[in-house]
């Protein structure tokens, strides 16, 4: 009972903290930094989606960027055709969600696990990359939207107030929208993981055989988790297309898939805060590295990844969480860095 209250206390604290940051940041940082921050927030949503699938569902997905890219393309193609962005926004969630469900059905029901699952998701991402990259001929058009191949789709129209295409979202609007979305996804996932469904998902991660013997169909629960993760990644893709106002097959590339995994492992699997923290930290470092010519960015990112696997295999957030718990530091802060285990 107390633990439960503490958990909720943490959730409330996190929400308040998030809202404060959301309102305060535009007041204190300059416009260029805002634009950069917006991209971090969007990528944090993507990181959260993998944090769910991998950290809680125990599903090693190497192709999270596939859903991200499908969401972005679905939005771009639909909004160019429809003009109004309401249906495209929904499509950017539904299409990748359905795609994840189909892929999941194809794989989970064949009991494909672990490494093999990783290889197949990676392969699917590479197929999408190759296929989308080969659509630059003028014959590859969906409605009014040319797919553009390697160049991608430029000048993607921004989100607008539902039904009013002339009321387009501003840069700051996009920041608020992304921030609210991140917060909503975070809170939503926390609540979902507390629910019966979430408990079963975690139970399956801990011991699939035991959960099945208790009568839960692991395949179904994994499939559902995977589809939810796919849908969230798709939503992030839609926001990303809005942010850059373009979308290209690069979103399906190996580099993009690698990044998401690095964020999650640095932040910590088995937490929701971890992926967000990891995403912000790594992107910030990458931006700083990009601004200088001294050290190659890959060199540093690679070193960080190896260092974390060897020295901090749990990731930053769980490690700090453990330390706080050990110190009985503060009952309100410790639950923020939640790490739920089913006994």
């Amino acid at each position, binding site marked *: 009972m107390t633990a439960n209250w503490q958990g909720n206390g943490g959730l409330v604290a996190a929400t308040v903290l998030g809202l404060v940051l959301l309102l305060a940041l*535009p*007041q*204190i*940082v*300059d*416009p*260029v930094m*805002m*634009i*950069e921050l917006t*991209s971090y927030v969007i990528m944090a949503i993507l990181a959260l989606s993998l944090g769910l699938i991998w950290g809680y569902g125990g599903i090693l997905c190497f192709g999270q960027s596939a859903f991200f890219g499908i969401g972005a393309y679905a939005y771009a193609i639909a909004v160019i055709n429809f003009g109004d962005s309401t249906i495209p926004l929904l499509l950017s969630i539904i299409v990748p969600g359905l795609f994840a469900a189909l892929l999941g059905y194809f794989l989970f029901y064949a009991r494909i696990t672990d490494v093999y699952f990783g290889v197949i998701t990676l392969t699917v991402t590479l197929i999408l990359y*190759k296929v989308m*990259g*080969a659509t*630059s*001929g*003028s014959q590859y058009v969906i409605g009014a939207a040319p797919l*553009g*191949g*390697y*160049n*991608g789709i*430029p*000048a993607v129209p921004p989100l*607008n*107030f539902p039904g009013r295409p*002339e*009321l*387009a*979202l*501003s*840069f*700051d*609007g996009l920041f*608020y929208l992304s921030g609210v979305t991140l917060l909503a996804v975070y809170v939503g996932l926390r609540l979902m993981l507390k629910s019966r469904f979430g408990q079963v998902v975690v139970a399956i991660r801990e011991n699939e055989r035991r959960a099945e013997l208790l009568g839960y169909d692991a395949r179904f629960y994994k499939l559902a988790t995977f589809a939810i993760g796919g849908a969230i990644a798709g939503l992030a893709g839609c926001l990303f297309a809005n942010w*850059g*106002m*373009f979308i*290209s097959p*690069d979103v399906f590339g190996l580099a993009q898939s690698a990044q998401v995994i690095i964020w999650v492992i640095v932040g910590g699997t088995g937490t929701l805060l971890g992926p967000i923290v990891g995403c912000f930290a790594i992107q910030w470092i990458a931006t700083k590295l*990009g601004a200088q*010519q001294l050290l*190659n*960015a890959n060199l540093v990112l690679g070193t960080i990844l190896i260092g974390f696997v060897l020295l901090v295999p749990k990731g930053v957030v769980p490690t700090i969480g453990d330390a706080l718990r050990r110190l009985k530091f503060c009952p309100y802060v410790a639950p923020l860095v939640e790490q739920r285990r089913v006994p």
Partner: protein
Amino acid sequence: MIINSSVNRRSFLKTTATAAASLGLIGAGGRAFAQEDTIKIASLLDLSGGLDAAGKPMQDAITFAVEEINQAGGLLGKQISLITYDTQTDMRLYPQYSQQAALKDKVSAVFGGITSASREVMRPVLRRLNTLYFYNTQYEGGVCDRNIFCTGITPAQKQSKHVPYAMNKWGKKIYTLAADYNYGQITAAWTRKYCTENGGQIVGEDFFPLDVTNFGSTIQKIQEAKPDFLYLVLVGGAHQSFYRQWAAAGMNKQIPMASTTMTIGGEQMVLSPEETNGILLCFNYFEALETPANKAFLERFHKRFGADYPYVTELAMATYQSVYLWAEGVKRAGTAERMPVIEALESGISLDLPSGKFSIDPQTHHCVMDINIGQIQDRKINILESFSQQQPLDTSGVCDLKKNPDDNSMYVIKV
């Protein structure tokens, strides 16, 4: 939060910035007096990643142009300061750095973008943020936007001479190999047009994504089709392996090649002479141009960058010359502000530059220039024929910025 049209967006940003500044939070005080003593321009080029071979010579060229102008006393009595962004061949960085250059550095003009993909990402951002943009790469033509000046060579200037010349030399059957993105696709279409117009025949056409390195089965297909020559629109490092595999199969002695892109990244210096000898090229600029302006330029350039500097590429020269065009616009306008500079450039600026007479076509914001055909021999290029003052006829067929100054399109020209 939700507001109407792009102008308001900007003013919203400005309001936020002003509000923040008035709270003393972004150090606006320092900015106020740093502002006036230099004219700032930015270069956004790929200095690392897959396109760096093309980007680095362009960066050297823009650095050199700025240094020259500054040594000659600067512009309007001020020095030019060049702000360099390395876009790392990463599509995400083009919009980000464009925004930074426009909003944070408040530059007078942005020079850069290499692929058409990067240009189409930068162009809307810079237009929205009212920052003048120079794009200095040969490309497929069709950009129509008053905020951009394209100094690169377009198909009507290039293929219209290159394709018939090669057909006269070698025969009428062409096999085209092109990079699979819009530059390659559209260039292949222009090649088809000039080939059939001159009574030739395209016997094969293949497109390759930029990461393809294995051309084995393509080489067999080419042998089966028996063309008189190959027309190559290959782009980037991976595609270089075509030249190696072609030579390894001994085909370089059987079927000659013409290329639109060879030498842009100094490829002739990386590949062996046997692999590149005889390739027919067509550009605005070759180092071998015998004009006094070019000889003087090369002497100054080699003094600055060393006698062993590999090669001043077409794109590097276009970048160098675009800085001079912009500077001339600033001089005539008497200010580095965007609109007066655009109007000055539209008044018909024409300069004698290393690549010959170079003028801006006010109707399209493209350039009128000399075209030269050259052939590679032992890593050097011999000029075979020159065509003076070619118009960008492809773009002028679809674009008239005098009549429609608000046009903002990338026309895909029907060929």
